[in-house]
């Protein structure tokens, strides 16, 4: 079984809101000191799903693909340290100014180029754009079925069996391979990297590709191929003032809180 996991480098989503800043003129996040770059958490869970499938099947070739800057090497190395076999880094100025459409095009082209891929895994969304578009987009471009919001993924007699999360429960969906699955947080904890794999990963070369390597033209990717324009990026105003309730006892505090909420017609 050949698995490709798409991963994205993002600014650490755990950064405190008090430190986070955007440059409104540049429409970009300000790289404030201490803001680390990390792999999007859902993508790490997608790697975990690939590793669990390898555990289940006994063997599987796992490749990582990322579109980003040279700095994405670090998160890709981390994925290799978790047990992925090889990695492809798509870096090209031609990709700049793209959107979900152009990202899906580039990743789909890379997956085609790798060839013979049975399963593509992505996070259910990246934890910076919070959009959840690219995964299904790749599936549409490749013409394979997509199953979203996976909590559990297994292979049963050559078909994929996915437990997918719904608002009020879950459903079991079967799909033929090749297919694409987007992974949700219910997958749970990600295994730690082993020392042996980390040492191996450090020495492992990455395959670096450009738009031309993927036979994509300038009109397909980057700003030229984008289907939308970012007009503004801003930090929303937080004008909430907290009213601290006073009371002698828990009972008095509880009564005051319920009164306040009733008076404000919240209850």
């Amino acid at each position: 079984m050949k698995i490709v996991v798409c991963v994205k480098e993002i600014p650490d989503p755990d950064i405190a809101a008090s430190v986070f800043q955007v440059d409104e003129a540049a429409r970009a996040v300000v790289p404030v000191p201490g803001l680390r770059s990390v792999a999007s958490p859902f993508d790490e869970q997608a790697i975990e799903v690939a590793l669990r499938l390898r555990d289940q099947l006994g063997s599987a070739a796992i490749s990582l693909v990322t579109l980003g800057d040279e700095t994405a090497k670090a998160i890709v190395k981390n994925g290799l340290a978790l047990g992925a076999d090889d990695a492809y880094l798509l870096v090209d100025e031609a990709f700049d100014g793209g959107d979900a459409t152009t990202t899906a095009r580039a990743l789909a082209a890379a997956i085609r180029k790798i060839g013979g891929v049975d399963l593509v895994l992505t996070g259910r969304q990246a934890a910076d754009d919070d959009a959840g578009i690219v995964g299904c987009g790749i599936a549409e471009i490749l013409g394979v079925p997509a199953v979203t919001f996976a909590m559990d993924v297994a292979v049963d007699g050559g078909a994929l069996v996915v437990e997918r999360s719904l608002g009020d429960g879950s459903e079991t969906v079967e799909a033929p391979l090749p297919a694409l699955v987007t992974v949700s947080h219910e997958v749970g904890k990600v295994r730690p990297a082993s020392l042996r794999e980390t040492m191996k990963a450090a020495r492992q070369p990455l395959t670096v590709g450009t738009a031309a390597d993927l036979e994509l033209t300038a009109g397909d990717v980057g700003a030229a191929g984008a289907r939308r324009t970012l007009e503004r990026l801003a930090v929303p105003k937080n004008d909430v003032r907290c009213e601290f309730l006073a009371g002698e006892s828990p009972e008095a505090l509880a009564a005051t809180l319920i009164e306040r909420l009733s008076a404000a017609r919240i209850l």
Partner: protein
Amino acid sequence: MSNPVRALVVAETSDGQPIPLVWEMLGLARRWADETGGAVHACVLGDGLDAAAVALAARGADRVHRIASPSLSPYQADAWLPDVCAVARAVGPAAVMIGHTPQGADLAPRIAFRLDAGIATACNRASWTAGRLEVTRPCYGGKAEETVSFRTATAVVTVKAKCFAPAPAQAARHGDVVAVPTVLDAASVRTRVRGSRRDASAGANLESANIVVAGGGGMKGPDGFGMLERLAVALGGAVGASRVACDLGWCPPGRQVGLSGKTVAPELYLAVGISGAGQHMAGCVNSKTIVAINTDAAAPIFRYARYGVVADCHALVPALIEVLESKAR
């Protein structure tokens, strides 16, 4: 705004009726159509949805495309795609509007790619500027918001719940309800639903609950969540949890609210023993009113809270349950 705006609302249904978010999208689409002399189209897919189609017309759709076929129920993206795309191609809308629900988030990106349309998900504001649609949506876990426009004639947008005023029902209003034959070739459906487990109990659906009672590290263990369960029942709400509480196994991961969990925007979010880390706030910052209960008066959660109580939740929560239960008696 000058050109007539034609919008297509894709209606998600539950128990034979459109979900409330559909009324909100119709309200928005109706306003655009009235201001520009445009039109509101809606489509509803599945069996036994005649009443839903009539309701869509009564709430402002000028034309309802009703596609009845047993192959379209229950929802599956593979099954719905050909028909939704066919209606969209026939209507040629400026905006295809889909609710930002687990179903809508599953469907919308594929519609966009099949129509080669620009797409924005989880939009909470929308406007027309110089004849162009601009939508605003939270990103970076709610720490920022972006406004985007589209370069394609049709845009696909998923709309967050409770951000727009719902269209009122007007019993006397009759739009055209058109029965459209399905274009689905059943052989093109590659996925198959083997079965589902739905929890119909009150508070099961965290994302659509009006009241969410969420617990964090301050709950000190699974027993604390038992207590929150009782408070949620007394309030008629759902229980949520922080990542810490889920990682420690005090609460199932499906209850996790935050960046790496679910996003909620209830009328009331009661954060109990939650410090308010950025990763948690990402999932609840759009709640209408946040109430925080925490022993630490300096906890970041109070920066987002309208009401704060500095107290030990293990004493306060039972007292809250007592007040609510005595009121109900």
